[in-house]
């Protein structure tokens, strides 16, 4: 079960900032699932992951405008 981070109802760039703070406390290979509602986060969270070498494993829609983005933390 990946760690969970609730960023629903937060507007960009807050979901990225919260994700960044949580990932800082995780180790390489750990997984984090981020729940978002701002469609901008579907661009920004993956972009943030790419520039930091983390992997987006999966993104899925949950309905009612909510999405989950699953991240695997990359090696330092």
């Amino acid at each position: 079960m990946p760690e969970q981070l609730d960023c629903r109802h937060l507007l960009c760039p807050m979901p990225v900032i919260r994700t960044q703070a949580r990932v800082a406390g995780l180790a390489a290979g750990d997984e984090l699932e981020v729940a978002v509602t701002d469609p901008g986060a579907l661009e920004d969270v993956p972009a943030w992951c790419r520039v930091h070498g983390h992997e987006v494993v999966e993104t899925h829609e949950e309905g009612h405008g909510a999405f989950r983005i699953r991240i695997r933390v990359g090696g330092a």
Partner: protein
Amino acid sequence: MSDRPKAVALISGGLDSMLAARLVQEQGVHVEGLNLYTGFCVEGHTHAIRKKDQAQPKRNNALWVAERLGIPLHIEEVIEEYKEVLTNPRYGYGANLNPCLDCKVFMVRKALEWLEANGFDFVVTGEVLGQRPKSQTRDKLPLLERDSGAEGRLLRPLSAQLLEPTLPERAGWVARERLHAFHGRSRKPQMQLAQELGLETWAQPAGGCCFLTDAHYAARLSDLWQARGSKNYDLDDVMLLKVGRHLRPLAHLKLIIAREAGETHFLQGYRRRYPHLRTTSHGGPVALLDGTWSEPELELAARLVARYSAGRNAERVDLELEDTEGGVQALSVPPMAPEAVPAEWYIGG
């Protein structure tokens, strides 16, 4: 220093900071980006709200720039700390509520804090001498250096040749002759350099990324401060000032009325913080009520909201007032005639 020198570049998402970072990167320096989120940044959330803007790319320009440069970008939220900069600027405001010089001092200081916490060597910014009348003149740049405590650790690659040599130049980490002497408001040298560096397409032009330089926004923020009797604000206030029509029919009551479906959806997210009016007999906007009111004043507010509903020409429009606990009060009012709404009620256009 055993390893490569390390620089932290302040990345706004605009062209100048991208070019500045690339110039230093090209000289073999390890560069990472820092983007500071004050709450007043134009991009990000704003385009997610209005339906008409949803065709625009929903991307964070600073992240986009970092990806083009191939550098990590750290985004730091500075909303609380920024209040002091905005409410009490040592060097005052620009044309609107933009405390540009204080803001730059603050950002360089934050970059220096980051630098020290992460063992980096110097800060890079995209400032261009003479580009901004208020904050980038020849007498202001040294002042920024002094107030931020940079002590030579602040490199502006686009104008470096016109300025005193900095630590990275003196230490030989970067060659001064490979930096530039850009000056003034023309954007041509930057565009040419972008082409030379293979960075022709960029996210946004310089400036224009801060709501505080916007006259309408500044008017709304001034109104908020005046109504509260203090210059306090939080992130929700900052967001709400960007959305909807703002009308103040009474000194102690402001209405935020959605202009379209996207804004209605957004304002509904605040229904547990503000009481709101919504039309029930006709299609219409959601309106948040910020302040206090008597029964006749509530009727006035309801007539105003009805004026923006599909029932604007009807004899009466039914509405509901929902308080922050979910309690509902029904109203039925004649819509106000458009010409009966005094122009001075509109805050910031």
